[in-house]
């Protein structure tokens, strides 16, 4: 929002957004008639965000560079990301209205823009052209090593030390802390209060916006698209304009060398939502993609499981109330409700349903499978056609899915090993090692060419088109490798007019839940302590969602405890097998 008008009542420039989309002054709560739509939306094209200080274009002195602030850099990153999302089919409102408003709000709250500079804070800028012959003499200046250690991005200590020492030995006028104006200040800021921006956080912003618009994309999918290269993340800075010179501490901020973890982005997203003081998000209802019923359908298809299982997932969802609007919708800042991971939740529901039907104790499911196999052998095709598909055989399903999973996992592992982290744009800490860096880069390119030719006909394949499904199964395959239409007859029975499972037992993943706040998890998953079938199923969803099995395990524990809540309260301490 370029809404820089002074408030009529108090003359401050400190605007917030009401639920109705009107601007209100935060200082005096004066509500205006101005609404969002009126606001100038060519914010994005104009990179001049700052209204606090005049930017001087010092052409010539810095070989064409200009002064730029870290948040401008992040803004460019976000711009690129949201454009990529648009290309993937996300609605354009996300970019122009939602994300940029969130961003502006963030800038204002963190006092990087749209506000009066708090008294006493001066920007201790160390830009490229500044001479710093008195680097060591200023005692208030934080040591460079200290700044480097504050950064969240990883780096090798050796490089940091050599960089630090090369800078402190300055006698010439070109010492470089950062290409940006406030690089060093940025790293120094007190993190707790102001929620310092980081690269992983850009994804949190994206997801926050996606959630607001209720786009049919889960966080795990978003992160997967990032890794697959459909959404810029790793080397976005190479798209910064020429005059925004990136060096020194900027590298610590913008050059990440690891893929962000789901947990990381997820937690930051909630922190951000609270920080921005956002109101309750739009409702997640049953028709919404993120609703467990919908996601379960999707994951059941992807896991090649019978469609009939969907009835059961819906039943579980209903019974434990995780399909309720209030449970699913995000309320920023509300500490009492559990933060919902829609994708993990849906996967966990499926796991629980599988446990309900097949027990998954490395014994019963194979028995049921043999039983089904017998039935299938005896039935003719005509019989099957009329009775709705063959009996679902766990063993066959396991073999088919395991095979595909292994193939895909192997491909994925090789991809990870072949990943190219560097890009064309050279990175150097200081002007001093620029030539060394360029020489190295040249050598790397030469070697890549030389050995690339010897790699044979294996060319680096074109980036695959982004797809929502990683595993797909077609009913048209005659080899019977698609299980969608199979029937659960063999594992169900009728009792008192109700369809119930033949399996009378259930085992809990854990008897007592941990305190999440203390150790970060509800339970602790160790492969050896659980049946192989359970591990396999966790592994399947772990692959699909690209997260550690323990996260799914946590959700499974949570669901189980809700499901069997009453029984748990009554039961004896050491009995972990329940009768349903």
């Amino acid at each position: 929002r370029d809404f820089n008008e002074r408030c009529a009542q108090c003359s401050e420039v400190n605007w917030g957004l009401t639920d109705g989309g009107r601007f209100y002054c935060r200082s005096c709560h004066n509500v205006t008639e101005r609404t969002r739509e009126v606001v100038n939306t060519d914010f994005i094209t104009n990179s001049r965000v700052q209204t606090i200080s005049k930017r001087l274009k010092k052409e010539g002195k810095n070989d064409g560079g200009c002064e730029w602030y870290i948040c401008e850099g992040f803004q460019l990153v976000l711009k690129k990301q949201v454009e990529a999302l648009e290309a993937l089919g996300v609605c354009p409102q996300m970019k122009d209205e939602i994300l940029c408003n969130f961003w502006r709000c963030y800038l204002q709250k963190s006092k990087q823009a749209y506000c009066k500079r708090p008294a006493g804070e001066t920007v201790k800028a160390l830009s490229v052209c500044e001479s710093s012959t008195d680097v060591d003499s200023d005692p208030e200046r934080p040591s460079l090593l200290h700044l480097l250690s504050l950064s969240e991005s990883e780096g090798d200590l050796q490089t940091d030390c050599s960089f630090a020492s090369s800078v402190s030995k300055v006698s010439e006028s070109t010492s470089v802390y950062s290409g940006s104006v406030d690089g060093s200040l940025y790293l120094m800021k007190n993190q707790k209060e102001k929620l310092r921006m980081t690269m992983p956080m850009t994804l949190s912003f994206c997801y926050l916006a996606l959630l607001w618009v209720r786009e049919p994309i889960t966080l795990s999918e978003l992160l997967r698209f990032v890794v697959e290269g459909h959404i810029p993340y790793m080397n976005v800075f190479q798209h910064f304009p020429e005059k925004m010179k990136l060096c020194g501490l900027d590298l610590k901020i913008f050059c990440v060398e690891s893929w962000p973890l789901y947990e990381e982005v997820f937690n930051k997203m909630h922190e951000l939502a609270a920080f921005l003081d956002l109101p309750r998000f739009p409702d997640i209802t049953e028709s919404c993609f993120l609703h467990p019923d919908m996601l379960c359908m999707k994951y059941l298809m992807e896991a090649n499981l019978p469609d009939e299982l969907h009835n059961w997932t819906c039943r579980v969802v209903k019974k434990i109330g995780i399909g309720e609007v209030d449970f699913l919708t995000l309320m920023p800042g509300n500490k009492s409700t559990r933060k919902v991971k829609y994708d993990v939740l849906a996967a966990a529901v499926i796991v629980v349903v599988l446990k309900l039907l097949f027990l998954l104790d490395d014994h019963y499911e194979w028995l049921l499978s043999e039983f089904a196999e017998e039935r299938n052998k005896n039935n003719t095709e005509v019989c099957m056609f009329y009775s709705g598909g063959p009996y679902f055989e766990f063993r066959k399903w396991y073999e088919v899915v395991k095979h595909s999973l292994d193939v895909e996992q192997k491909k994925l592992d090789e991809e990870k090993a072949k990943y190219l982290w560097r890009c064309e744009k050279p990175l150097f800490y200081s002007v001093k090692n620029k030539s060394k860096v360029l020489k190295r880069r040249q050598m790397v390119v030469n070697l890549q060419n030389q050995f690339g030719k010897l790699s044979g006909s294996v060319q680096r394949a074109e980036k695959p088109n982004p797809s929502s499904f990683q595993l797909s199964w077609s009913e048209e395959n005659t080899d019977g490798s698609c299980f969608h239409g199979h029937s659960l007859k063999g594992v169900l029975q009728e009792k008192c007019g109700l369809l119930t499972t033949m399996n009378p037992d259930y085992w809990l993943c854990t008897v007592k839940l941990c305190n999440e706040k203390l150790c970060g998890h509800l339970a602790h998953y160790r492969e050896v302590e659980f049946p192989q079938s359970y591990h396999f199923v966790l592994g399947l969803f772990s692959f699909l969602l690209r997260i550690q099995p323990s996260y799914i395990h946590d959700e499974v524990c949570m669901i189980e405890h809700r499901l069997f809540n009453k029984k748990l309260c009554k039961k004896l301490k050491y009995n972990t097998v329940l009768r349903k």
Partner: protein
Amino acid sequence: SSNEYKLNFKKSKEACLSYIQDALLQKQWKRAAEFLTCYVESLEKDYSREHIGPSEMIWRIGTEILWHHSQSRMKEFNCFMEQMKTLGVKRYLKVCLEHVFHLLCNGQIDEAYQNLSLAESWRFGEQTAIQDKEIKLIQAYRGLLDYCSWSKQKKILLEHGEDGFADLAVEQEMHGYFRKAAVNLKEIIKIPGVWDVFVKCYVDLLEFYGEHNEARQVLNEYAYNSKFPANPNAHVYLYQFLKRQGESKKSLISALKILHDIVPSHELMIDFNTMLQKSKKRKKRQLGLEVIFAALDYAGWKENAKAWSCLARQVKQIVISEKHLDWIKQEWNSRKDWWPDFHFSRYLAKRNWQENKSLSYEKALVAGILLGKDCKYFKYVSHQGCKTRVKRFRMLKKFVTRHNPVYLRISG
């Protein structure tokens, strides 16, 4: 913590390396090249704390791939090596040396020589002093190539000599090479190490120019200086030299004694035993028996007819003289539990008979003496032998039968 699972640069490159390793072990050069292409960007990151950095990895792996890959040419190989030389000052000379080895393997002797000269003249501040050993090696190999040139000239000279031509130019060149080679070879063998090829060449030079004392000194140093690692070849060279010089049996025997101690299974043990058997000194003859028994302990000697004939001869001689049966007893004591299965099984009897009659003859004699005429081996061979009506087998049977009681005394 969840950070363990974070996929970062370091982990990705570690995984990449293990794929390269697998590919190399399975000789899948294309696949190795594919992954190496992805690995090379590690050069842009600082690994100075690691034991082996990416530049060394890339040098070694790249060398292997380029050497074995079917589509790789020498030109590319050389180009690659030149690049590797620039990657690390501390490794410069090592890379040069390895490059030279590859050139030699490819028969490019002149290029190898040029590279060696170039490397020799390299100077880089304090690195020159630190890499002193590498320089010496380079000089030594240059000396070796000089020796090769000398050899060639010598050959030409000898051929001309036969025709009656005295080719001064060739002779001058030859002497020139000698001087260059000798200087460098002499230097390297001063440093404790295993320098077989240098020693051999140097000694060859010295012998040609009549410097026998110097040669003897060099070989003695090489064999007996405790600072040098134990090296059986040193003793072999010394022995061969002494033999060429026509030295006394005494010195020859003393040269081989240490070899027997270090490598009882060495092929020269036959010569050794032969010398010892003929000695007038009792102790030497007993040593001879020890030596031949020790050699036959090794699987590689099982079918060595010559060795068996040595043993047979000595055993026969002892039995006939009826003196020193205790020697045999002593040697047989530690072997009687396993030699019968190892050497004298019925299966071996059959096989030896089929494949090598002389071998079976000699073995049968030994078996008959040590195990008696009723042992499996002797019975089979002698039976077969007598069937063929070959005279010596009949003699053998008579001999063993006559001396049968001996085995009782031996095995008792």
